């Protein structure tokens, strides 16, 4: 189960990465292709759908790696039992909200499917297809949060909490790998 879930987050993360490369490909093809009269029909739409898919599919992976930011000033001061309780509260609130969000994202996608909504672009693509990445990513995030909640409730250290870097080089690596500012 543990291995299965971790793989699930990781592969969804890889899929998000693949969408990034795809956005790059689409934009380059359109930019170069314009000179030769080549075009991707609704290329802009595809790029924006890839964007949404990328942003949400990678969430669970990003969360587990501890790269979704929060204001850590208070919580990082607390230690021991108190810290544990605070983490549970933060996780509880986040899980509840994500489940709520997730429910509505899934029903939005299901409605698009049920009512056969079409994209208003050059190509009429059924909207539920691009929306799958969005609600799928949120479902994965909700699973990751529940998983994390159980993990911390059992008394473990949260996986999103990183060990302090052991060397300056490692720190620099981490900064480069997504240091917000």
């Amino acid at each position, binding site marked *: 189960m543990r291995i299965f879930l971790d793989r699930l987050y990781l592969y969804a*993360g*890889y899929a*998000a*990465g693949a969408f*990034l*490369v795809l*956005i*790059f490909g689409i*934009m*380059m093809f*359109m*930019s170069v292709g314009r000179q030769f009269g080549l075009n991707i029909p609704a290329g802009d*739409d595809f*790029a*924006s759908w*890839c*964007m*949404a898919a*990328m*942003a*949400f599919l*990678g*969430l669970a*992976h*990003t*969360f587990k*790696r501890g*790269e*979704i*930011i*929060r*204001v*850590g*000033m*208070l*919580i990082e001061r607390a230690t021991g039992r108190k810290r544990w309780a605070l983490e549970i*509260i*933060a996780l509880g*609130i*986040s899980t509840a*909200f*994500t489940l*709520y*969000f997730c*429910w*509505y*994202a899934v029903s*939005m996608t299901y409605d698009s499917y049920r009512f056969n909504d079409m994209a208003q672009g050059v190509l009429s693509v059924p909207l539920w297809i*691009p929306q799958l990445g*969005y609600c799928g990513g949120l479902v994965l995030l909700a699973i990751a949060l529940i998983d994390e909640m159980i993990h911390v409730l059992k008394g473990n250290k949260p996986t999103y909490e990183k060990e302090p870097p052991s060397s*300056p080089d490692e*720190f*620099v690596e981490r*900064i*480069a*790998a*997504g*240091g*917000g*500012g």
Partner: protein
Amino acid sequence: MHDFGLLNLSLILLAFMVFILSTGVWIAVGLGIVGLIAMLLTTSVPVGAVLATSVWSASASWTLAALPLFIWMGEILFRTRLSEEMFRGLAPWLQWLPGRLVHVNVIGCGIFAAVSGSSAATCATIGKIALPELEKRGYDKDISLGSLAGSGTLGLLIPPSIPMVVYAVTANVSVLQVFLAGFLPGLLVIVLYSGYIIGWSLLNPSKIPPRDPPMSFRKKLAASTKLIPCLLLILGVFFALVFGFATATECAAWGVSGALLLAWWSGTLNRKTFFESVMSATRLTCMIMLILGGAAYTTAAMAYTGIPAGLAEWVKGQHLTPGMLALYLSIMYIILGCLIDGISMIVLTMVIVLPMIQQAGIDLIWFGVYLIIHVEMAQITPPVGFNLFVLQNMSGRDTFAVARAAFPFFLLLIAAVFIITEFPQIVLVLPHMAFPPS
């Protein structure tokens, strides 16, 4: 539906926001919950459906596709040997200036800033080589740390810039125009920094070691040739932006191509670095996108409450001049900047600040640059300043010592804010050149 006074409602929401964020809930979730409560208190529209659709339409955005591409470009370049080449290529040319190699920090960061959109990455990349080299030669530690902390923040002001994309998307203005607006203020900050270093070293001649042995012109040139591709990439991106050759998203795609080419040319592009750069860029994008999604929903929710319109009314009633409003906002942003990171600061405040500045008649492009300079300050103010963390780790000194060293540069950023407030043309001339106002 309940009837609260607008003021009470705003105070309740503000207090709740502070509370929820301080519990350590992830920022995007906190934003979403605040939006949720605002809507539950004031409207009877289906809250969950608004949540799902507003986040979807905010994230399936073609303009936003520039964001991951610019992030990726920076990630690729971070993995090249650019930083070593930067030091070796710049050092011979800056020996004659008072302050000598300290200027490498400023100019090096300025150049790297023009290919990277992140402050911490700029600071770390240049610092990796410059800090040990400067220490070896016996430069004063405070000035080298301080200048590095300050110059690293140029990564945010000189395009491409991640927070600028975030601002442009939340304020619904053109990414390209905000980018263009950043170039000259970036140069202004470089001039201020270098000017300060010159003045400082004239006053403290004992703290600047003698120059390195002179090199022949030809050798200098040879040391710099490796920087040429990087400079070409910057010029390419710059002209593509100015002459409207490409949209911001296309420009970003070309930037990625250029960065890949540069990495390949310098021999650092392999399967591992490529893969790592993609995954790092993906994670950073996901983090920012989740915050943007939360913000999009809060903005939609706030519109239902009537708070933004109320605030605009209030500003109108106060007869605030744009200058006074800018001053008040500066104070607020400097305080906020000490407590939270730059991107959250932009996103958290825009809902409230945007209607105010529109009412006061402040140009949104100008405000973007103004805001980004405050985000730069946030990077070097304790206790939460990202560049301080970077340098603390690289130099082994504590946050407050680094912050003290960076303090003069913080003041120089305030000076820059005053200058662009007095002379808004510095910000607006380039965007108006490329997009003549009708």
